[in-house]
């Protein structure tokens, strides 16, 4: 198979794109800071002993608002794209996305429980209340995925087709439970739920960021090590087994990484569609199906795409902002169509 781009060129290009996206994400926002101030504030945040004269505003906006937001975007975009690759590899189906094993719908259910039922959890300690939503979403995603995985197992074997169908069934079930909570919600909680379903990097704070950063770093380090095994799995399960791959273990790892990564991403930023499904595709269209390239390239592409989408989200309607889920699909879908049609011609 010929590829459009050589892997090395792709990595150089994506790294540059990612660095550019990081810089733009730090330098641009509704508050227009002079470029020189942004630079000086960035250097000060890095520990350079510069005079702080007149930099309080720049430092606050850079350090407390834009930097956590940029880190959140990098982690969420990267981990969603990686999980997409993992799921498409696991199901050997390019239409698979992280939602297929139930992690998204489970997280949505957890979030609905937290948002609508929040008042029933009376007596929560004060420090915990702000994290209730994230914790419930994370646990919901993990719980439903574990159930899907369990349902797909028989006699020590994981049947991927059964798992897929179980995922569809549990997604439907979780969807109807979310519907029930939607019905029970009052106007205000309903809107919170709606906005949560569209995702946002807004209001990122370090306290919420650390768990996600640790988990996504672990996933980003672990999954690329399994690139060879994923390549073998492309041939089929028994073929991969003959090549000396412990297929059962690989499946377990893929599901576990996805549940953990997507669960943490969704818990931190809400539902952000499109990235997990389409970023791996984009990379595959550009560079072919080799997972050694696909995994790290998707990580970079997912992170860049999400940062750029977030830039649009916060600038388009400033001082208000758009939910990012709207933007990812709006930018990504036409681009994807273009690549698709071009590849066919």
């Amino acid at each position, binding site marked *: 198979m010929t590829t459009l781009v050589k892997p090395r060129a792709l990595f150089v290009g994506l790294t540059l794109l990612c660095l550019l996206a990081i810089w733009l994400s730090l330098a641009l*926002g*509704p*508050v*227009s800071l002079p470029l020189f101030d942004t630079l000086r504030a960035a250097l000060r945040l890095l520990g350079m002993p510069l005079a702080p004269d007149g930099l309080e*505003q720049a430092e*606050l*906006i850079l350090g*407390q*608002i*834009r930097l956590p937001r940029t880190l959140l975007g990098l982690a969420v975009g990267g981990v969603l794209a990686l999980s997409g690759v993992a799921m498409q590899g696991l199901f050997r189906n390019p239409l698979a996305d992280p939602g297929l094993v139930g992690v998204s719908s489970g997280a949505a259910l957890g979030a609905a429980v937290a948002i609508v039922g929040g008042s029933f959890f009376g007596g929560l300690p004060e420090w915990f209340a*702000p994290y209730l939503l994230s914790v419930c979403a994370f646990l919901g995603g993990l719980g439903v995925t574990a159930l899907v995985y369990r349902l797909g197992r028989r006699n020590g074997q994981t049947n991927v087709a059964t798992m897929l169908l179980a995922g569809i069934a549990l997604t439907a079930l979780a969807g109807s439970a979310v519907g029930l909570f939607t*019905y029970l*919600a*009052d*106007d*205000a909680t309903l*809107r*919170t739920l709606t*906005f949560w379903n569209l995702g*946002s990097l*807004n*209001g*990122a*704070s370090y306290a*919420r960021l650390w768990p996600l950063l640790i988990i996504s770093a672990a996933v980003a380090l672990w999954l690329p090590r399994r690139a060879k095994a994923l390549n073998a799995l492309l041939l089929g399960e028994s073929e991969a087994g003959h090549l000396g791959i412990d297929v059962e273990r690989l499946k377990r790892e893929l599901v576990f990484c996805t549940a953990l990564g997507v669960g943490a991403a969704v818990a931190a930023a809400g539902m952000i569609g499109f990235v997990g499904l389409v970023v791996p595709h984009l990379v595959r269209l550009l560079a072919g199906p080799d997972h050694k390239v696909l995994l790290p390239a998707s990580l970079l592409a997912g992170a860049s795409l999400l940062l750029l989408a977030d830039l649009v989200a*916060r600038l388009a*309607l*400033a*001082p*208000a*902002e758009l*939910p990012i889920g709207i933007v990812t699909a709006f930018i990504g879908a036409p681009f994807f169509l273009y690549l698709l049609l071009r590849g066919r011609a």
Partner: protein
Amino acid sequence: MRLSTHVAVLCAALLLGQQAVAAELPQRWVSAGGGLSEWVSALGGEAKLVGVDTTSQHPASLKALPSIGYQRSLSAEGILSLRPDILIGTEEMGPPPVLSQVRAARVQVELFSAQPDLSTLEKSVTRLGQLLGAEPQAAQLLHGYQQQLDAQKARVADAQTRQKSPGVLLLLGHAGGKPLVAGKDTAADWMLRQAGAVNLATHSGYKPFSAESLASLDPEVLVFADRALTGEAAKAALFKENPILAASRAAKAGRVLELDPTLLVGGLGPRVPAALKTLSDGFYPATSGQ
């Protein structure tokens, strides 16, 4: 000469003093609550508003201000880009991390309660008056408000001696389609009761109703609040989308009232007493105009 110097010094001192007070009061306001924006305007502070949220629809001139989005999904940097001195909102304002980011930028964040009761309102308007340097206006507005509500109460009590309280349903819709019925614990329910009606819906919150249960409740008066259309167009759309309502007792008797849906969000606003009067006039046609 000496006297004039004294006067001049006194004048200067007074002026300076006033300026000092004015300088301490927040000058650039961002409001994230429809009801609060209305009160700020009513207190003469509209010129100080530099940004409002999407629920701030009244007075209409507020729509020309930069929008900071929906009150529950505010963006810290967006708000800071307006260089405000103060951000006001109800307890619905959020998300909380954004509020702490705004506070960290040394913007005063004032939270008000949106509970529809008079003592809460009194506290909020008094506080707004202090912050705007318009305490006398605040006291005057509150006094007038109280009087109007007292008069409303008396009017309803008087009307009820001559006519039974009508059973009413309040429908909240969008261009007539699939209206939600206002139940208990809503601002709509509070308004219906203040205007002397019996809310026939006994559920809690705003919920969709089946056409059959609408018909079985058979309200004497229908109140509709439409987010997309107003006046006759809204009424026509409501009956076109829900033919069963057109056959109801209320529709046949022509007892269908309209309510501005923006009155139902953000607590008690300055327009509430007038709206209550219109409603109770519709509920008790025999005593209207008194």
